[in-house]
């Protein structure tokens, strides 16, 4: 029966080459089914030993894995619907579907892996395959996003590789993940680097807004909902949580997390593209995860509550964030559809952690950990972050609000969406609204809406009410502005609505601009000057000789070179003891 675990990984892998053919694209929907089946049918501690695979591996479930597998599978299944229905059969979509399934297989494999090599293999497959998802369907901006993503992903993978090597060195070639002893500082630093890139922790985040902004809706959904959560899973498994207190590392995590949490919210508030707003909200959530991990490193006794809270938080964030991206995809087809707008607002509220939503539940579960050190500055910072998150979501709602007659207001924000739609739909014919994608999305909405009531106590429901009130007071002018916006006069009103907000936003914006200029203006100029200088240097020297190695390759030169090297090394051997 536990052979089903192998099918979870194997079925997407085997289907991947088949879905290239447009006629078989529906097979994408089949790929996540074994994962759903194993969630339903297998006991929550099923294990499958595969001693012949890789360096000897095993697949299995435990409590954390089960939850991760659940929400990951849900996100991938629901994102698969628009992949089949909306992406169509144009050139390049076969490649997209193939890589979609490869990334899915990698993601599921690493979740189920019971030892680090399996985890790494899944991690690498997923990371590389996702490159092709970001790139689809091409264009300069996506190429740039893809390049940044690929470079950072490779660096992250190598960092993780070395971390696992160093861990394996102390514990044998393979080891079972939960039984880690306290690793040394290098390992923790490498884990922070390697997985921090995947999570989008500041300052390792540059790929993330680019990728989320460029990727098609289903790809952004799985990137934000499923793939970036892998970092948290890795940390939960590889960090020595609950075994020893590591005060220095704990404080570092807390501060890194806090900086990421607050700065990302600030940067997110000034974005003009709703996708980037969501991207920065993801970065801030990564900060929250790292902050919580830091608190657990400080106080190991909290680990059982903390791990549960983090897992729940990850589930909530995965569903909501992927829902938002899928919803944006639907909205781009028909901005005026009120159902989509209402759904997006519900999701935005959940992400903001408004009372009675999954966000509030997640917050209330995490609260014991967050208040554990009893630092007043941390409480204040978290309060600020909560309010800022709500404002960020208000900003998001404002950006997606269909402004009648203000197309030009939105054009700047969504150029690449327009082009992507243009390439998908033949000019002149309005494509039918993707009804199955909508249905899948509504199912996801139901899951998010039911989340707090199924999983949470009533006492958790009103969490964040106070923060909501404050945020509401701050955001009221904005809401008012949107409310008062009259049809046909969008542009003027839009400016006026900005005027209303000026009191609050403008000083922040101005300050940001000034500090930015003060901090980076000089830097940018210097970098530019240096670059120009380098180029001119290159021109002055002239083009390099066709093959500078040629002289080196002449046999006499090589011979003398070898003699020289020999003498040098000989001296080394004789001198060194």
């Amino acid at each position: 029966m536990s052979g089903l675990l192998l099918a979870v990984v194997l079925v997407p892998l085997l289907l991947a080459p088949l879905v290239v053919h447009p006629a078989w694209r529906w097979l994408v929907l089949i790929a996540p089914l074994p994962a759903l089946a194993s969630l339903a049918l297998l006991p929550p501690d099923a294990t499958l030993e595969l001693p012949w695979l890789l360096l000897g591996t095993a697949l299995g479930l435990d409590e954390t894995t089960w939850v991760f597998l659940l929400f990951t599978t849900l996100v991938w299944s629901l994102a698969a619907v628009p992949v089949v229905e909306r992406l169509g059969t144009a050139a390049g979509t076969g490649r997209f579907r193939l890589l979609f399934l490869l990334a899915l297989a990698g993601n599921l494999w690493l979740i189920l892996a019971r030892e680090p090599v399996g985890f790494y293999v899944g991690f690498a497959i997923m990371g590389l395959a996702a490159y092709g998802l970001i790139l689809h369907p091409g264009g300069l901006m996506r190429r740039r996003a893809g390049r940044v993503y690929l470079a950072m992903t490779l660096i992250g993978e190598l960092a993780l590789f070395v971390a696992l090597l160093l861990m394996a060195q102390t514990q044998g070639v393979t080891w079972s993940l939960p039984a880690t002893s306290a690793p040394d500082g290098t390992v923790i630093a490498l884990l922070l680097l390697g997985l921090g890139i995947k999570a989008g922790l500041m300052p390792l985040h540059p790929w993330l807004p680019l990728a989320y902004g460029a990727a098609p809706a289903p790809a952004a959904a799985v990137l934000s909902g499923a793939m970036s959560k892998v970092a948290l899973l890795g940390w939960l498994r590889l960090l020595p949580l609950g075994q020893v207190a590591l005060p220095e590392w704990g404080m570092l995590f807390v501060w890194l997390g806090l900086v990421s949490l607050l700065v990302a919210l600030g940067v997110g508030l000034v974005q003009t593209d709703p996708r980037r707003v969501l991207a920065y909200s993801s970065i801030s959530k990564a900060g929250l995860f790292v902050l919580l991990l830091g608190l657990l490193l400080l106080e190991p006794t909290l680990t059982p509550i903390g791990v549960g809270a983090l897992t729940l938080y990850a589930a909530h964030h995965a569903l909501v964030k992927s829902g938002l991206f899928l919803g944006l995809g639907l909205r781009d087809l028909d901005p005026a559809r009120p159902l989509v707008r209402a759904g997006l607002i519900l999701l935005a509220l959940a992400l903001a952690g408004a009372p009675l939503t999954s966000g509030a539940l997640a917050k209330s579960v995490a609260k014991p950990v967050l208040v554990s050190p009893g630092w007043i500055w941390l409480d204040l910072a978290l309060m600020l972050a909560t309010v800022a998150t709500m404002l960020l979501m208000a900003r998001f709602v404002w950006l997606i609000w269909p402004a009648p007659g203000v197309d030009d207001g939105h054009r700047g924000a969504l150029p690449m969406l327009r082009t992507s739609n243009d390439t998908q739909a033949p000019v002149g014919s309005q494509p039918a609204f993707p009804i199955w994608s909508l249905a899948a999305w509504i199912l996801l909405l139901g899951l998010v809406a039911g989340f707090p009531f199924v999983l949470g106590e009533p006492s958790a429901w009103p969490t964040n009410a106070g923060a909501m009130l404050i945020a509401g007071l701050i955001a009221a002018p904005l809401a008012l502005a949107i409310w008062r916006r009259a049809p046909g006069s969008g542009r003027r009103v839009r400016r006026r609505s900005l005027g209303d907000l000026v009191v609050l936003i403008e000083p922040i914006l101005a300050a940001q601009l000034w500090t930015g200029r003060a901090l980076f203006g000089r830097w940018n100029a210097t970098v530019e000057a240096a670059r120009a200088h380098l180029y001119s240097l290159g021109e002055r020297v002239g083009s390099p000789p066709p093959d500078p190695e040629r002289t080196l390759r002449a046999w006499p030169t090589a011979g003398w070179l070898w003699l020289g090297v020999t003498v040098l090394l000989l001296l080394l051997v004789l001198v060194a003891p």
Partner: protein
Amino acid sequence: MNLDPYLPLAIVLSSALPGALIFFLGEDSYRLRTALNLFGALLKIILVGWMIWGVFHGHVYESRLTLMPGLELVLSADALSVLFVALSTVLWLVTTIYAIGYLEHSPNRSRFFGFFSLCVSATVGIALSGNLMTFVVFYEILTLATYPLVAHRGTPDADHGAKVYLAYTMSGGVLLFVGAVWLQTLVGQLTFTQGGLLGAAPEALHGQFILIFFLLLAGLGVKAALVPLHGWLPQAMVAPAPVSALLHAVAVVKAGAFGIVRLVYDVYGVEFADDLGLLTVLGVLAATTIIYGSLKALSQDGLKKRLAYSTVSQVSYIALGASVLGPIATIGGLVHLVHQGIMKITLFFCAGNYAETLGVHKVSEMNGIGRRMPWTTLAFTVGALGMIGIPPVAGFITKWYLGLGAATAGAYWVIVVLLVSSLLNAAYFLPILYRAWFRPPPDQWPEEAVLSKRLETAPALLWPPVVTALLAVVAGLLAAAPFSPLEWATLIAEREYGR
């Protein structure tokens, strides 16, 4: 009757005899030549399978011919020789099929296949050599048998490349010979012994041992393309694709690397070499070669040239594994002997396919080639990802063991070398993959030939890379399965360290 003493000899002759016969065939006897080629290759596979089974169960196979007292030609099979024999035998079969497809309409086929078979016989002889003198003999035969293959096309370029090749390898051969003779006068018959045979020698000889090591290393380093002795390799790129594939994956380069492994483990003994400080020397040379080769590969536009520099870099992983003390690093180096072979031969097959089918020789011409030749490009992708060390392709297993061995031995600089090399490999392979899969194809290929009605190219050209790519994935995925390259390398390391 006990056939065991004849088995190593039979394995060498199974390709040498058909090769000798092929020389006498006319150009037109296509069927007979192909039949002879395939017969030799299949026979060899069967014999090698027999030998693998026997060596695993501890049998001893040894063919011995005394030339004069104190100078014997010995062919014998230990676990290490079997690893190399199995690799060259399997890849020879694949390459033969590929070469038959590749050279179908070109002149001088009998000459080509004759030397081709001799080349593999020499390689197998190197693998099965039981002492250093036998090794030197086959090493020289290999040099001579490969020269006509490099010069095969007969163009001025080919002539020049072949001359450079000969100058390098003959000089290297002389150094190797001098070193071997010198060593033999000091300690007598140099039978390859697990754990080394010099460790017990009196301490007064240690100074000479160090000098001899440099001589031998220079001789082997030429074929193994250690910087600065690598100059011939990029120029030998003028050879036809099957020759390049064989040169880089099985025969010449690999023979040098195999010789270094023999030198360190079975002549000096890895612990004795470490005592003399020679492992550090080897490590520095290997690391330099790895980084330098990758850097050079970055700037090459010619696909085969880029692959050639990649070989320079990748083969030194084997030497790097030998230069780190400890069984895990040894496993990493040994297993790369096989892994590099199957991955690199895949890449060269693909390069040959691009050139033959579309006339594409340069990286900059490869835009959208994945649409036109998806299977070839898929195989190329597997090979390239394996070179970078992306799991689950075999290269990852190498990297893991080398890194782990280095960490265990405390040689953290090796991990840094591995990291830099991985990044550089990514930097020169991923742009190719990007072009091939994500750029739109050009309106017209440089020189398109229709080689097959149904397939993207001729079947004899298509199947070999697909099969070797599959092997590369299987070697990585099933690394822990019995009789995988990794398990076999582990067996060798156990026997080497577990005396």
